[in-house]
């Protein structure tokens, strides 16, 4: 009798525990699961150059079921400001950060400290002077290769006859690691061509104070300025080459103001950065990987090819 009673109590208690567990699971499932929040900090976040990148971020966030927050920033952000922005986002319960690093001496160490709290992925360029040995995962185009590609296009167009030609390198931010890598790629390829290299800024182009036969813009702002000047015939017949990522840049290519345009796949950069973070959030032991995104060399004639139209689609978002 006693055994029977004991068995009955055990049976009922077992079922009650199971029912409670199922109830908790049901309630857990009913409450909307809080999505991990990813903060994205890039310079001049509203600029059209980020359209494809942000489109990639958004698509990846949908695929990976993450909440995305793109921090509004001005065109110039210092490392100090960037650090404050990151800390503010962490305080606002950001679970990870995608950041375009401002290249300063202490940038990498500061970001490394932040990485000990939450996952950090760099985009556009690394925070390290040595592009081969970044302490943090970086999703970027091969800036050196893009610079080299621009030079190769240039050499091709001039059939190698660059001796004595003046080439102006234009860039809005000449301190960024991306610029330095691109410039290095460009200069390395142009070595021994006899071309004369000048360093200039968009403002100087607009002011018409640059006398060069070739303009190579190594960032978006530089190319738009060069394209704009070229469109309005203020470059005295100089040919414009460059690396950019906005529809404006494509427009100047379309109207013939720019000879050749190299566009990195910003969609891939945005998408890949979120995927890496998602893997890390899903598995804390996951070691995030750096990766190189592809780029496309575009000419006016092949601008509306089907494969290039997709790039236009991304940059038009």
């Amino acid at each position, binding site marked *: 009798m006693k055994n029977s009673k004991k068995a009955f109590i055990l049976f*009922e208690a077992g*079922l009650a525990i199971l029912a409670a567990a199922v109830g908790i699971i049901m309630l857990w*499932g009913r409450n909307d699961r809080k999505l991990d929040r990813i903060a994205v900090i890039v310079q001049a976040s509203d600029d059209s150059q980020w359209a494809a990148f942000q489109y990639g971020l958004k698509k990846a966030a949908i695929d990976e079921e993450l909440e995305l927050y793109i921090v509004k920033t001005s065109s110039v952000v210092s490392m100090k400001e960037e650090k404050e922005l990151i800390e503010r986002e962490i305080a606002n319960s950001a679970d990870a950060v995608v950041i375009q690093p401002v290249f300063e001496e202490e940038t990498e160490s500061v970001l490394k400290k932040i990485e000990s709290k939450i996952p950090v992925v760099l985009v556009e360029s690394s925070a390290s002077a040595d592009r081969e040995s970044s302490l943090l995962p970086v999703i970027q185009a091969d800036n050196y290769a893009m610079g080299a590609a621009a030079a190769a296009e240039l050499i091709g167009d001039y059939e190698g006859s660059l001796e004595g030609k003046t080439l102006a390198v234009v860039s809005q931010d000449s301190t960024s690691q991306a610029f330095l890598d691109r410039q290095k790629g460009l200069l390395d390829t142009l070595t021994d061509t006899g071309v004369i290299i000048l360093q200039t800024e968009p403002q100087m182009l607009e002011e018409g104070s640059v006398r060069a036969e070739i303009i190579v813009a190594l960032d978006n702002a530089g190319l738009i300025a060069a394209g704009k000047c070229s469109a309005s015939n203020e470059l005295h017949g100089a040919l414009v080459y460059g690396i950019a990522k906005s529809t404006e840049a494509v427009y100047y290519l379309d109207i013939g103001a720019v000879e050749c345009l190299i566009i990195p*796949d910003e969609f891939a950069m945005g998408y890949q950065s979120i995927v890496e973070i998602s893997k890390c959030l899903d598995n804390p032991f996951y070691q995030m990987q750096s990766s190189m995104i592809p780029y496309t060399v575009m000419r006016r004639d092949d601008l*509306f090819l089907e494969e290039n*139209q997709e790039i236009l*689609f991304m940059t038009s978002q």
Partner: protein
Amino acid sequence: MQSTVMTTFSIVSISLLLLIGAAMYLRFSAAAREEITQSALKLIEQSGENLEDYLVSMRRISDAVYYNVIKENDFAGQNKDIQRGMNLLYEANRDNLRSIAVYGRYGSLVAAEPIASQKEDPNVTQQEWYQQAVNEMENMHFSTPHVQNLFDDGSLRYYWVISLSRVVEITNNGDSQSGVLLVDMDYSSISRMMNKMNVMNNGTYYYLCDSSGKIIYHPRQAQISRGICSENNTTAAGYKDGIYDEVFEGNRRKVIVNTISYTGWKLVGVIPYETFNHGMENMRYFVIMFMLLTGMMLGCINRVVSVRISSPILRLNESVRAYEAGEKPQIYIGGSEEIRHLGYSIQKSYEQIELLMKNIVMEQNERRKSELDALQSQINPHFLYNTLESITWMIEGERNDEAVFMISQLAKLFRISLSKGHTIICIRDELQHAECYMNIQKVRYRNTFSIVFDVEEQVYDYCTVKLILQPILENAINYGIAGMDDGGEIKVTGKKKDGNIILSVEDNGMGMPAEEAGLILTDSNRVHKHGSGVGLINVNSRIQILFGKEYGLTVVSEPDEGTCVSICIPAVPYTEENRKILETGSPFARDDINMKVQEIHHEK
């Protein structure tokens, strides 16, 4: 038993519960799957209609431009009217339109709305929409989405459009020539429509492709173009309208296809089977919860039912066991009607057994009593015969005084013998009876022996079985002193010893060996040889019947010395109550008397 009942109930009920749960889950999951599929089908049909309406409206715009504007006017002289007409149509539909343009036979722009500068060299004749129109002049053609490469509106932007193109007849200075009418629809209109369909974030998605499978809209179009994911669009384009099951890249999914009329576009809905599972997750937990709660409830019910069934049986069993152990509990009567009936039956059978036992005891007592009476009744005729014979001799010998004495003694003897029919009398009466008997015998034996009564007075008022001394005295006369010519002595003594009364009859006759004395109380044949047949055995039996086996006679004898027969009976004071108790003759009565005797003994 209870465990067995409960285990059986539990196994049966849990098995049923599992079956019901599984059936319920399968039924619900099938219904939910059907519902998801049907709602997707309805959404596709509804959206397909909306898309068709949209495309029809675009065709109407094209028709209106062609029939109401182009055909009605000559481009040479009525350019303003043409521009006005196109402007009206554009303004009325500007939310869905990007541009309306008319191109001449060689791709030259004839008219356009909104007015914008044409690009330097758009190379119109090489564009797909133009070639489609020229190649199939009788039809209107919808292109797939593409970047519009015609106008420069100064916004530095590129627009995604779907081109509706057709060959039109243009009148210029009265000459009729062919041209192409282009209506560029804003892709965002279709994109918005499709986005609305894809708001559900449950894994189901919808896409649009043309008849060759080329994707017009896909929620993951960018990922597909980069190879991050893929779509089975080419196969889907070959499907007719309906619902299909397919396995794509190892994933099972349901595909719903709806064809958009005129364009041949396919609106495709994809429901991965994980969606069904996702939708069924809550149902699964609900079914598990239902089964667990029902299991708990069934467990309680099983417990109550098994207790209600087994408890009366167990209680009945316990009462029967207690009865078997010698207790006399009330047999449990309770529970269901069958078990109550069983209880009643057992109780009744026990009552009957008890009644039978009582009857048996009573019958046994009666039998003892009648045995006693039979033994007792053997004395009287024998003695009476001898005495009456002696009296006859006396009267014949004219010894009248002796005869009178004999008769008076005989009368006294019979009075005591009768004792109002009582079996138990006091020792005083028994001694008197013995004395009468011996007086009669002395006369018969002509005083050849002497009799001495040496009885303590204190034993007079104790109980005894009547007529126990007389057979012993008879034996003493017959075997002890009958052969003696003179000098025979019989001594009757009585005393109380250790709570018992000892009455002894001692003679100085011939005696007998010890072995023979031992046989007197057991070997009845021997007694019959010499006596009347009523011997010491009878006396011993009567004493033992009434007082128990521990009481009775002892015979001590020595050849040529004499014999001593002692009677040992319990010292029970003679009262009416004790007499009645003893006369019942039952073993219980003996116990009662023994207890009383012990009490008295202790009091003293």
